[in-house]
């Protein structure tokens, strides 16, 4: 789960990391009040869960409370990469002379957290990794023993941090480690951590990603999920216990298993070419009961872009004939009006296909291979466009 900038920074603040004393506004008037309180010189930052906000015009400097109000109005009316801006963070303006990157993430291959830093902050770490990899300093942290002070010295030394700031830098790095641990974070990142003209370190932008698997033990963090900022269908799918991600294509996919679901998406793209592709990722999990299938159908159909549906079920322990009967029950309940292609494979696949074929439903056809199923779904989508 991704946290907004303001959520991440406020959490950093709770762990003792110095952050600007800004506030969140949802209306231009609120932005005006906050800017006035902060002395007028402020930065207005859109709070949406996408990168590249600055380039999209979602971050602006204001010199007065009046200008802050007008800029907030402008930013709050924007849509950035498909997400409407509903909140802005109003932070006091800061003058600084250096930008540092400091972050902790999980290194999957090593099985350890890794702290990374760079004197070239202010741009994304991936960008630094591409253009100037030597400017990134890394320290692997033993998950059992934690971050040692000497490792922070290694980092401060590696990024040539002036000695004046080492003491404060150590406090911040240790606090970030504590925050990462206490939040079950996949990523805790300050970018940039600036050296202000007054000679203080300050975390002026931040990002956190929380491990979804750990949310049950962090009700306070789970509550921070911004439901407004995700497609409604994803919220409903999560409540139904279905793994669903909305995509931009036209073919709704319903599959059992995550790997097979990705593969099914890929096949629609392979045969659909540039214009046709998957409308979603959807894993209904094991079993494929009529209730689950019906819920999944409703979620897929709530996307107006969907022109056809491809159902791909591999019956292993679940038998395909049972799945086919379940599909017919769900079909009767939901009555989808778009063409549907069903491909059943594995245990009792033949019997399953026979059940589908004998039901003789005009917009419901079966296919025996994934290739055939994907081609049929693509044709059906083209016909409906």
């Amino acid at each position, binding site marked *: 789960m991704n946290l907004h900038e303001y959520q991440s920074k406020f959490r950093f603040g709770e762990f003792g990391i110095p952050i600007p004393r800004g506030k969140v506004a949802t209306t231009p008037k609120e932005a005006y009040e906050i800017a006035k309180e902060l002395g007028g010189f402020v930065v207005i930052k859109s709070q949406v869960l996408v990168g590249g906000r600055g380039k999209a015009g979602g971050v602006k400097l204001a010199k007065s409370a009046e200008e802050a109000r007008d800029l907030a109005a402008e930013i709050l009316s924007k849509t950035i990469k498909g997400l409407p801006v509903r909140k802005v963070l109003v932070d006091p303006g800061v003058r600084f002379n250096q930008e540092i990157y400091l972050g902790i993430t*999980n290194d*999957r*291959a090593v*099985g*350890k*957290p890794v702290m990374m830093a760079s004197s070239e902050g202010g741009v*994304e*770490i*991936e960008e630094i*990794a*591409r253009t100037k990899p030597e400017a990134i300093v890394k320290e692997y942290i*033993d*998950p*059992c023993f934690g971050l040692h002070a000497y490792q922070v010295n290694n980092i401060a030394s590696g990024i040539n941090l002036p000695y004046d700031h080492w003491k404060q830098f150590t406090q911040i790095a240790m606090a970030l480690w504590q925050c990462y*641990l206490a939040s*079950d974070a*996949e990523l805790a990142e300050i970018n940039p951590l600036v050296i202000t003209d007054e000679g203080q370190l300050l975390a002026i932008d931040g990002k956190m990603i929380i*491990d*979804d*698997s*750990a949310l*049950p*033990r962090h009700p306070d963090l789970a509550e921070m999920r911004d439901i407004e900022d995700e497609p409604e269908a994803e919220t409903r799918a999560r409540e139904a216990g279905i*793994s669903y*991600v909305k*995509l*931009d294509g036209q073919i709704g996919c319903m*599959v*059992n*298993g*995550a*790997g*097979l*679901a*990705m*593969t099914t*998406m*890929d*096949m*629609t*793209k*392979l045969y659909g070419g540039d214009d046709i*592709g*998957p409308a979603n*990722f959807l*894993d209904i999990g094991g079993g494929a009961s009529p209730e689950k299938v019906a819920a999944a159908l409703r979620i897929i159909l709530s996307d107006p872009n969907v022109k056809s549906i491809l159902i791909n079920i*591999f019956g*292993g*322990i679940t038998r395909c004939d049972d799945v086919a009967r379940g599909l017919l029950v769900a079909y009767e309940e939901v009555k989808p009006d778009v063409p549907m292609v069903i491909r059943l*494979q*594995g*245990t009792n696949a033949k019997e399953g296909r026979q059940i589908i074929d004998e039901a003789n439903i005009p917009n419901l056809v079966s296919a025996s*291979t*994934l*290739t055939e199923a994907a081609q049929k779904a693509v044709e059906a989508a083209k016909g409906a466009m």
Partner: protein
Amino acid sequence: MSILFDSNSKVIVQGITGKQGSFHTKLMMEYGTNVVGGVRPGKGGEWFEGTVPIFDTVKKAREVTGANVNMVIVPPAAAVDAIYESVDAGIELIIVLTEHIPVHDMMKAYQYVKASNSRLIGPNCPGLLVPDVGKVGFMPGSIATPGNVGVVSKSGTLTYEVVYALTEAGLGQTTCIGIGGDPVIGTTFVDVLEMFENDPDTEKVVLIGEIGGRAEIDAAEYIKKHMTKPVAAFIAGQSAPPGKRMGHAGAIVSGGEGTAEEKIKALQNAGVRVARNPEEIPDLLK
């Protein structure tokens, strides 16, 4: 022959009394797997299906039965403890099926296993299957048949799909292994490829990967340097957008790393035949 598991393997099931645990244990036994015991604290002395003794602890189960494999199918909050318990009891092979173990917990357990003599497969994996010998985990026995192809995969149903296609095409398997779709897992592609390379009965290998992380890139480097046996591969998630998690906790392209495209390229550079469609895999092995 097979890797990791053979007719001498003795399996215990931690979580044998749970709904999933008992269901799959029965299927494993029907397939011929030598299930010698179960573990469930508070139920020691009872019997599963009248034939399999249940113990309170892994230590006790191992002492009495001589089990060398523990299949862990307990809720996520109890799963890492089961890993520590298995390591301390001296279990050689720990197979964790449980999904949704927090990564921070898993990183500690991973380091603990690494410093021990135990091997961990998973978590969040379907387990392994040796055709006509036994299976540990979710894989349906009916789709596999003995032969000379080794299969290693990050996923579940996609693996069954490929194993089924191999069987239909007359290509049997030595061992089918699901290593799991989590970011931090005990056994990697490289580990399994090395075992297949050293297994005299495995002549060909199928690798099924997906977006996220760099395990497939490491596999490509290993294949290029060390493997003499032919490898065919499929990478799922070619159409997945960056930054979105596709079901598996580990299946996410972040910061431009872990794309299907770079993995396919690396594998092709290593001489691996990469299928555009999983149905092509049997042909690529012929």
